[in-house]
């Protein structure tokens, strides 16, 4: 059931006022103990809500997203509001401008309520690497909320926001969506503008929605998509209509990666539930093919090598000169290094140092360039696969959410837990997490630019498994 359509009808029929709708959610966010909130946008939200109520009172029509409360991962710019990236370095930083994707939602009348907790600069898979306290899972508060868009996924799962905008570089929308039993979509790279999203690894950074229904994912995706002169990697895309994703008859073949499933690293229950889902799909007359893919440690290492190199470069601007929490040293260089060593988290420093290692002379050939080469092979592998199958289905994670505290103790284990999500990021493919099939959901992937097919298959699975 689409929450957006339901609330839209309630607003139109004057069953609720927009101010009450927004105030109720702000109260829930304020009193919540899951650590999902970095800052509340209460003044702005209530002002926008009053305008919507005035429109309804005057008998004017309102758009579908008008008055719908949503959340924003705290790595997006929204002019005049704090954009901290959950970091000490930017804890007082105010966005000078607004991200394109967020502006499009504002233009459609949606109301931003909150900047949401996440791993600092997107560096993490558990939303524990943050100055605002670890995000607690929506279902079991002893467990992590997932990451890096953990606050966003928990807010949606707990109905604090109707939808939230996350960011996905190596799984940061899909994994927390899976950990909190909601939908989370990473579109094809370039479908949504990255302008105003703080860059982590620019070649895989994607903007995407987290919501409770496929219909809400579709509605929000359509609003945010499109070419943007401020992000030259964006492309023109056509709107996905509701009627186009209802019938999945064209999907004849589904594939899955054998080595993801036939490994000791996967939780046995996730494995058996995944295979049970495959059987249900077969029973509907769809052909299922086992596919070969790269080893999990190769995928993870390729992704992290490239992502760290890109983040070392992207975060080099954060030196306390023009903005950020500057700590004065004896001279300029000293100021840079004290500012950065005091204000970056251990995980962020680990990634910057790793990135500079692989980019430095003597290392770049055998690690960074080889990583790029492996990425090319991964992309070629996907191209070959999508000549044979329409959809690739995978678990979202090999294991259930870890306990709060465990990931910080063992970063390598945290990196390896991204084994099923990072490959699709490197391939820049559209991938949706659905809250079905296994304890942490399933991922549906299609070929590049075929986002519509992903949503179509999600609708099919909703009634099938």
């Amino acid at each position, binding site marked *: 059931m689409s929450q957006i359509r339901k609330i839209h009808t309630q607003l139109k029929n004057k069953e609720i006022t927009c101010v009450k709708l927004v105030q109720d959610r702000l109260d829930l966010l304020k009193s919540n103990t899951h650590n999902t909130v970095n800052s509340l946008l209460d003044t702005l939200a209530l002002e926008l809500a009053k305008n919507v109520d005035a429109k309804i009172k005057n008998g004017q029509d309102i758009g579908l997203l008008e008055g719908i409360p949503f959340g924003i991962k705290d790595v997006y710019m929204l*002019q*005049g509001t704090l954009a901290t990236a959950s970091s000490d370095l930017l804890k007082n930083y*105010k*966005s*000078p*401008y607004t991200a394109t994707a967020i502006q499009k939602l504002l233009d459609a009348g949606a109301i931003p309520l909150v900047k949401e907790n996440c791993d600092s600069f997107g560096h993490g898979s558990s939303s524990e690497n943050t100055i605002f306290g670890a995000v607690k899972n929506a279902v079991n508060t002893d467990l992590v909320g997932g990451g890096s868009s953990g606050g966003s996924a928990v807010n949606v799962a707990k109905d604090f926001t109707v939808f939230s905008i996350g960011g996905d570089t190596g799984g940061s929308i899909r994994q927390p969506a899976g950990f909190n039993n909601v939908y989370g979509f990473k579109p094809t*790279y*370039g479908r949504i503008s990255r302008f105003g999203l703080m860059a982590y690894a620019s*070649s895989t950074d994607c903007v995407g929605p987290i919501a409770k229904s496929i219909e809400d994912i579709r509605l929000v995706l359509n609003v945010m998509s499109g070419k943007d002169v401020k992000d*030259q*990697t964006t492309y023109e895309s056509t709107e996905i209509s509701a009627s186009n994703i209802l019938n999945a008859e064209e999907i004849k073949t589904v594939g899955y990666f054998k080595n993801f499933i036939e490994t000791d690293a996967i939780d046995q229950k996730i494995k058996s539930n995944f295979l049970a889902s495959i059987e249900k799909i077969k029973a509907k007359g769809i052909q299922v093919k086992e596919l070969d893919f790269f080893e999990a*440690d*190769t995928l*993870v*290492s*390729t992704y*992290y*090598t490239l992502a*760290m190199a890109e983040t*070392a470069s992207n975060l080099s601007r954060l030196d*306390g*000169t*023009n*903005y950020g929490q*500057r700590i*004065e*040293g004896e*001279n*300029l*260089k*000293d*100021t*840079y*290094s004290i500012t*950065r060593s005091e204000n*970056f988290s251990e995980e962020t*420093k*680990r*990634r*910057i*140092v*790793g990135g*500079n*290692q692989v980019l*430095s002379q003597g*290392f770049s050939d*055998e*690690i960074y*360039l*080889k990583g*790029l*080469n*492996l*990425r*090319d*092979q991964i*992309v*070629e592998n996907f191209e070959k696969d999508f000549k044979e199958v329409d959809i690739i289905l995978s678990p979202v994670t090999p294991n259930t959410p870890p306990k709060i505290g465990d990931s910080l103790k063992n*970063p*390598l284990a945290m990196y390896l837990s991204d084994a099923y999500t990072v490959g699709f990021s490197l391939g820049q493919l559209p991938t949706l997490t659905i809250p079905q099939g296994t304890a942490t959901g399933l991922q549906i992937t299609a070929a590049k630019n075929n986002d519509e097919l992903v949503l179509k298959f999600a609708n099919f699975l909703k009634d099938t498994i």
Partner: protein
Amino acid sequence: MTVDILSSIKGSQPSEAVNKLFEAIKNANSTNNNSFNKNHNNAVSLDDLRDDVVINSPNIEKQLIIENFPKEKNGYLVVAKVIEE
């Protein structure tokens, strides 16, 4: 140059966890070394480049950029002391 200087992070050291990832890359099979970079087609076509024009920022944006500046003295924005080496 050492990584702490490259990274501008005092006292930083390479980490064991990250080095393990690099080992995996070194040991991974890479069959076609000549294919380097052929799939990275995110580049913008020459016909599609944006216009080379200066767009003036709105006043509110300028104001926020100034507000974000870490240090101000007598109406001037102060940077750290620059040294010549």
